[in-house]
């Protein structure tokens, strides 16, 4: 089996989740009851036997570090390979690289040291469950320079407007990459490339004063390099705005979607918290809801997601809401279309109601 190393490049990811990304980068935002966004990327990589992973982080990476530790949850705290979070801390006055090429340049040792022949570069905003070994197989069959991964979407949701789309020609060759609407081939911000090719392209892009590896070295060079398109067909969600975060969260309440994302043979792992099982008291009434461990529920919860350690008091009502870790909802409070970031406290009898298309968001550690 040929080896792949992974790069999770967070450099271009805008922190557009408002209150949820005030204190953390998007990759560290809690998702799906017990995960953080980045868990999906890391788990996909380890499930595909990628055991060397570099994370290019630039801003608000503290909670990312806390969460990933050294890849412990993925058994990546190793001597050989492992997970490396690489925030910018470069002090070379002769360094002329710019943009995300700074990461590639300053972490060139990661590429040099890995024994992998291929590199899989991914962001953290496309939630999915994908086997990158299949991508590699396709890449080799196509004999391409680069293989980009895309999802053919059924319906044009607003979040896809920000995504790049692919024009795909004969033999799955990518002919153009652009932001045009109504093209259903959404580029998933993941590509596979031979290590040697990546190193050459990075060097060239820096020499030409470029600042954005994918745009400048791949997209703009399309006629000259062979870019192969790989279609991913599994569960998929793009989270790049508060609205898409909210809608895709509650989408998980659809049982089929949930089962396609969480698979026994390709589990999504996350940092272990050792919470007790959740407790449903007399008088609790919970419907169509995902609940993580450590919750104590006495009230009414419907069409919602409760993260770990949430307390819902007697007579409290929660609808269409996402309640993050350790929030406490006191008796008789009412929440509808609300997102509470972690450690929030909602006082007794308090009512908060947002709109279905624009949930009411409360930043972490707030008491209301």
């Amino acid at each position, binding site marked *: 089996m040929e080896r792949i190393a992974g790069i999770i490049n967070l450099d271009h990811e805008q922190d557009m989740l408002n209150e949820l990304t005030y204190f953390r980068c998007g990759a560290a935002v809690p998702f*799906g*009851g*017990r995960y953080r966004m980045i868990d999906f990327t890391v788990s996909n990589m380890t499930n595909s036997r990628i055991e060397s992973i570099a994370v290019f982080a630039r801003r608000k990476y503290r909670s990312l570090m806390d969460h990933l530790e050294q890849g412990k949850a993925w058994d990546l705290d190793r001597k050989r390979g492992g997970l490396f979070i690489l925030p910018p801390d470069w002090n070379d006055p002769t360094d002329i690289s710019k943009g995300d090429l700074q990461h590639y340049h300053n972490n060139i040792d990661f590429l040099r040291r890995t024994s992998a022949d291929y590199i899989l570069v991914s962001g953290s905003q496309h939630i999915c469950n994908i086997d990158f070994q299949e991508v590699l197989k396709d890449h080799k069959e196509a004999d391409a320079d680069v293989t980009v991964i895309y999802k053919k979407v059924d319906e044009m949701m607003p979040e896809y407007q920000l995504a790049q789309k692919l024009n795909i020609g004969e033999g799955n060759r990518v002919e153009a990459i652009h932001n045009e609407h109504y093209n259903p081939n959404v580029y998933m911000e993941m590509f596979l490339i031979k290590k040697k090719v990546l190193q050459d392209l990075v060097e060239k892009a820096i020499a030409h004063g470029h600042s954005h590896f994918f745009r400048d070295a791949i997209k703009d060079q399309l006629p000259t390099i062979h870019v192969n398109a790989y279609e991913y067909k599994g569960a998929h969600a793009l989270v790049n705005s508060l609205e898409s975060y909210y809608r895709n969260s509650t989408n998980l*309440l659809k*049982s089929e979607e*949930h089962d396609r994302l*969480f698979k026994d043979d390709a*589990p*999504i*792992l*996350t940092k*272990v918290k*050792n*919470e*007790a*099982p*959740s*407790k*449903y*008291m*007399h*008088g*609790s*009434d*919970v*419907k*169509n*809801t*995902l*609940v*993580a*461990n*450590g919750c*104590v529920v006495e009230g009414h919860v419907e069409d919602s*997601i*409760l993260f770990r*350690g949430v307390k819902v008091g007697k007579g409290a009502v929660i609808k269409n809401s996402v309640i993050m870790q350790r929030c406490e909802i006191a008796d008789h409070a009412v929440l509808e279309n609300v997102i509470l970031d972690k450690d929030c406290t909602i006082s007794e009898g308090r009512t908060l109601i947002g709109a279905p298309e624009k949930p009411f968001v409360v930043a972490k550690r707030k008491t209301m």
Partner: protein
Amino acid sequence: MKNKECVAMLLAGGQGTRLKSLTKELAKPAVFFGGKYRIIDFPLSNCTNSGIDTVGVLTQYEPLVLNHYLGIGSPWDLDRKYGGVSVLPPYMQAEGGGWYTGTANAIYRNLKFLHQYDPEHVLILSGDHIYTMDYSLMLDYHKEQNADATISVIEVPWEEASRFGIMNTEENGDIVEFDEKPAYPMSNLASMGVYIFKWEVLKEYLTADDAKPESSHDFGKDIIPALLQDEKKLKAYTFEGYWKDVGTVDSLWEANMDLLKETPDLDLNNSSWRIYSKNPNQPAQYLASTSSVRNALINEGCKIYGTVDTSILFYGVHVEEGAVVKDSVIMPNVKIGENVQIHRAIISEGSVIEDNSVIGDPTPGSEITLVAEEGSIMANSYAMTQ
């Protein structure tokens, strides 16, 4: 390397035959409890939370299940480079080998293991009880008193005292007599099977005991009486809190039900005293629109479409529409079909309960029904007790 102040030895050899088919393929300490745990998680978590980072786990039967469960000890933070958790089955030695013949014999045959850490004190634990206890407080007491051995005791109701090993003590805590299951108890202080010995004293008495052909090589029956006879300093350390033997199907069921009280005596949500456990990495639990759940403890990976009442569900349990689970304990990965009725039962790991079957006797006080591991209950069938 520095020596270890206190090393723990956990006696996990009990076969637990009174747990019937639950322990057919499983040592008793590996039995599931509380929706998420195995019994052994409690003493191991107690060790970690008490700052004891070196634990020998003495197994008797095929050690592979426990070996595999304990792994390198990482769930309990016992994956230490020096110390950590070690499984110690009876192994072959140049002079032969054989089963551990008693609790004292088990420790005696691992003196070399202890010697490697050159501890000052040795904590002896058993893997049969559900409780949370700070052993470091007991160790402090043991050191303050400069005791040769300290035995943890708990007050039991007088009417039950004759079922336990009873300590008769002076007012200052000195133990003067050990009464194994006395017909007429003189005290209600029962031994919890938790001992701290000075390492030197333990070594001496285990070695002497091994040379006695008439000894049963048991801590309660032989070692403690020998220390008492020699007028060694034995102290009773009184523990207050929840402590429960889960040695029978009924007591295991009861201890589970204890967790469903409004304010349980054992707090699993105490963030300063976590009960660590191997994590199955399942997604969040899902309660469907058709579900009805009350008075229940439910773990990740469950999917509930039916009714769950006064019950405990481990990870990966599916309860289909129309099914009713009441007063029951459902172990991991059990699939419960449509319109199944389960009352007062323990369903073992991986069982499949097909549609419309009826399990257990709802009569209060009736015997608890046990469905064996990976059992399969046919559709439309009826099962009650065994």
